[in-house]
């Protein structure tokens, strides 16, 4: 049992690139069921046990829907800096600010040109810096490119709660003009 929990912890704290080049965070329910060769009830029991054990370490189990599948991941219970740099954080905040103004922010897309105009003509970033920042944010799974522009990738929705995104949107409107 302990060994299964250890494996489950490792499985849920992985990240890997999918066929469409998007970064996957954690593991989908179907993959876990196949790998562990157990049914949904037993998986649920294992996840509950893991949840209780990692809570002491300040970690929490997150469930999210991605491409019609249920996924599990592990995140920190406390606020702390992530791996992105200052310029990437600011650009992500602007993207959050633009998306949160829309009707369905979780699925909406914002034009890259609109963000670029704001940041490059406002002399916040150079054009080269901006392109690199967007590439990095996409590579690290924070945003994904669509037909009309960029939208949230699951990582942003996991790492920033709805209230946090609303607050970031307000601050970005105040500070970047």
């Amino acid at each position, binding site marked *: 049992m302990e060994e299964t929990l250890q494996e489950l912890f490792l499985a849920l704290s992985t990240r890997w690139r999918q066929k469409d080049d998007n970064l996957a965070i954690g593991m989908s329910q179907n993959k876990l069921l196949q790998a562990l060769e157990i049914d949904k009830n037993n998986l649920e029991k294992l996840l509950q046990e893991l949840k209780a054990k990692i809570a002491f370490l300040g970690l929490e189990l997150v469930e999210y829907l991605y491409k019609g599948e249920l996924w599990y991941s592990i995140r920190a219970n406390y606020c702390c800096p*992530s791996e992105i740099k200052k310029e990437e954080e600011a650009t992500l905040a602007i993207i959050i600010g633009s998306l949160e103004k829309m009707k369905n922010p979780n699925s909406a897309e914002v034009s890259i040109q609109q963000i670029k105009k704001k940041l490059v003509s406002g002399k916040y970033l150079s054009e080269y810096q901006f392109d690199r920042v967007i590439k990095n944010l996409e590579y690290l799974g924070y945003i994904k490119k669509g037909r009309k522009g960029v939208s949230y990738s699951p990582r942003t929705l996991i790492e920033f709660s709805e209230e946090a995104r609303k607050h*970031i949107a307000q601050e*970005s409107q105040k500070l970047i003009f």
Partner: protein
Amino acid sequence: MKKIPDSTEKKLIDCIFKYREALSHKKYLSVPEREADRQSLNDLYETLSSLKQKVLDSKCYLQFGEIQKEQTARLLADETTPEQRTEMLAYVLRCLCHPVVHFHGRSSINNYPERKEMALEEAEPEFTSFSEANRPQTLCTFKTRPISYEELEASREKLRQFIKKETSPQSWSSLSINEAEILSQLAADGQAKIPIEVHDSAPSNYPVAIVLKES
């Protein structure tokens, strides 16, 4: 038939729309202009008679408050450089982030899998729960052993020599998964060149290679 608002209501509605529009377009309204509007709204208070007019009056004050907040923030932000504002925004985002937990890839090659065959009697109890009919004679399991720093460095050096000798990536298919992983790390650190095939029209005297370097 649509009811035409009286002059008091019209003034109140005009005031609300003026400030709402200024706020949405981030238009600057000077202090004397705002003060004059506030003064006229104050004078209008004596003429308010219905509940609707009082609600509109409250909405006007709400818009005054919003624009005041916005313009104070702009005034404070005007004193800062774009770099400082970027830093401030990045700080807000950093303070609200609950990052996902993950392990970096480098640790994944610290153990080399080693195939080991063992007799059924030696196997751990959890492996022995086979039925009598399909019980195998031996069980295969993967055991891992730790790899030392010297061993890892030796593998890196061996790979550096290998890619110098075998310049065509087609001949690299003989590499194991772990060796390919180490090669990727060397390329990512800028320590190994990955040659690429270019178009036929490119000059043959100049080999093209990719070197990845983190800036």
